[in-house]
Structure formats: C-alpha cells, structure tokens
C-alpha cells in the first residue's frame, strides 16, 4: 500500500495500521458488497481536524486516515488509519480514537447490500454503541 510508505519516521518507534475490511456476513446474512456515502466536504474537514487533534494529543509523528466512498467489495478495505509515535502505547490509543470518531461522528454512511438483494443503511458498528441521536456540535 502506498499509504504505508508515508507512515515511517526516524523518531517513531511504533507504527499502528488499522484496516476496516468488508465482511462476508452481517447478523447471519450473506453480504454481497457495501457502498459508502458521505457529506463529503464536511467529512473531509472533520477528518483533517481529527488528525490534527490526535497528533497534538498523542504527540504523533504520523496520522493518516482515508475512507473510501462508493462500492467496496467483500475483503476489500473501506477505511485505513495509520498512526506513528515514539512509543507504541500512544500509537495504539490514537489509532483507536481516530477510527472510533470516524465511525461514530463523521458524516459517513455504510449501506449493506445482501446477496438476497436486500439492502440496509448501517449504524451497525462493531462496538455496538447505540446511536443516541444526541446533537453534538
């Protein structure tokens, strides 16, 4: 991956890469593919701000996040987050923080297309956090 080339830094001892990939099943139903949609300009601004925030908070040398839009097939990568820090604890913590915020806060939506032809708009995060409908500015 080309992104990986950008992930190294002489002062970084720990690099963590997260890849969110499309599973072949969801709640027992066979998944054909996913498609992603975003409020694109707003999502891009929020991700850029999120990476800046994480860089400062965990003193990262590298913070990268890329989310695909449109159709993504089973086993393909939908989102990648890379963090690099002097020590590994910070790289892990920042990485998890960034992906959690992307999944729950950034205006990005997953639509699951099942093999049986049905489709469902997501909200089915792996961490099972309920959408609360809170208005968070």
């Amino acid at each position, binding site marked *: 991956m080309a992104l990986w080339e950008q992930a190294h830094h002489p002062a970084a001892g720990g690099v963590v890469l997260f890849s*969110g990939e499309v599973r072949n099943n969801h709640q027992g139903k066979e998944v054909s593919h996913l498609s*992603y*949609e*975003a*409020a694109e*300009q*707003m999502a891009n*601004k*929020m991700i850029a701000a999120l990476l800046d925030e994480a860089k400062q908070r965990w003193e990262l040398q590298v913070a990268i996040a890329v*989310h695909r839009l449109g159709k993504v097939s089973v086993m393909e990568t*939908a*989102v990648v987050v890379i963090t690099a820090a002097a020590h590994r604890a910070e790289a892990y913590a920042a990485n998890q923080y960034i*992906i959690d915020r*992307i*999944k*729950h*806060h*950034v*205006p*990005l*939506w*997953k*639509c699951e297309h099942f093999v049986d032809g049905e489709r469902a*708009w*997501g*909200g*089915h*995060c792996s961490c099972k956090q309920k*959408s*609360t*409908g*809170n*208005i*968070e*500015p």
Partner: protein
Amino acid sequence: MITLEFFAGLKDYFPPVMEVRETPEDINSLRRYLIDQQSFAKTLLEQCRFAVDDTFVHEDYPLRQGDLVLVIPPSSGG
C-alpha cells in the same frame, strides 16, 4: 428560504436536495416540520444531527434565510 441536503437512509423519504420556502426559526422547528412532512421517517429524524457551514449545530441554532442545512443520520462509517 433554506436549502436542505439529505443523506443515506433519509433519501428513502426525502429528495437529495430540498428547499423549504418559510425559514424555520431554529433546528428544533425544522426537525418538527420534517416529521410533519414525513411521519414515516419520524424515528430516523429524531436521531439526526444537523449541520450548517459543515459544522454540527445545536437544537436552538437560529436559522437564517439562505442557510444550507445538512440533515445527518447517525454515522456508520468504517
């Protein structure tokens, strides 16, 4: 007048872009207006966040003539 943009599952109930002739007072009024328009989308609309100028705004944010308002269902990226 304000302009609304709808995303994801909301587009099963609303067009991608829609104009509202009478500018609602605030986000709360807008939310109630939309629920009145499409009661089938009530649950989803109650969960939505709203954004103006690419920034989430509170329930009491005062809308102004010409605002572009994004109607944002719960995020499900990743």
